[in-house]
């Protein structure tokens, strides 16, 4: 059941990216290009998603446990720190260069576009490199516990 729920959530997420047009890098870049022919669609996507997720999360946080798992894994950190900001800058630059963030990048694998495959492979390498780079810093059990409740 857990697997079916995850698969279903992935399908709904994919349908949302597809219908909203956010699978298309050109549409995303048109939002980011505020000095060009600006397309505010991505802002509408965010607002609409938040209108559903905010009350939904409020409902979920009031429950003692999820329906199909032993416990909920809510993010544990609440301090703004340097890795958060540096990471967001690096991600933003990469996003602005091509117009792909992780969700649309994975979804576009369905097109078998060589460029997308290269992008996703590089993204995976970037994730693995970050994991190797931070490992010596996260050896204490407390930090391991924090890593489990990472943001997203």
């Amino acid at each position, binding site marked *: 059941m857990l697997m079916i729920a995850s698969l279903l959530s992935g399908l709904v997420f*994919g349908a949302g990216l597809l219908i909203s047009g956010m699978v298309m890098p050109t549409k995303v870049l048109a939002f*980011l290009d505020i000095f060009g022919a600006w397309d505010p669609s991505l802002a509408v996507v965010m607002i*609409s998603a938040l209108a559903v*997720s905010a009350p939904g999360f409020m409902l979920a946080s009031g429950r003692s446990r999820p329906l199909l798992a032993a416990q909920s894994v809510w993010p544990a950190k609440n301090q703004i720190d340097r890795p958060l900001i540096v990471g967001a800058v690096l991600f933003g630059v990469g996003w602005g260069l091509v117009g792909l963030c992780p969700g649309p990048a994975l979804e576009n694998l369905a097109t078998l576009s060589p*460029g997308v495959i290269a992008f996703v492979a590089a993204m995976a390498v970037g994730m693995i490199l970050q994991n190797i780079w931070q490992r010596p810093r996260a050896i204490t059990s407390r930090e391991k516990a924090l890593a489990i409740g990472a943001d997203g």
Partner: protein
Amino acid sequence: MVNFTPISAAIGGGLIGLSAVLLMLLTGRIAGISGILGGLLDFRSEDKDWRIAFIAGLIVAPLIAGWMGYGMPPPELPASWTVIIAAGLLVGFGTRLGGGCTSGHGICGVARLSVRSIAATVVFMLAAIVTVAVTRHVFGG
């Protein structure tokens, strides 16, 4: 604003929000794509099954849409392989360092009114806007 598509954006956004709520209510997990993929690529993690299932759903969705007659064309990407690879590396490294991306911070975190996620979302949006401004209007034609 000739390409503004508010209705499909609102419907699609609602579905993305619904997906995040479904995943949290049913499995207790945050629908952050970089976190889901990052956990899959971390050999220490022991919960790979649900991650594979979610990503499979994400990739199968456009195939189902294609069978229904709504095919997804391959995306338009920059001509330069160097730019594509560099951007992929930055997105991968940056999202893991910052603990999330557009979905984990931008939708799930902001919905929880997480100060970290609001800060991250403002920063990555600004960084992306500046990058597009520089590549299109300073160096680009």
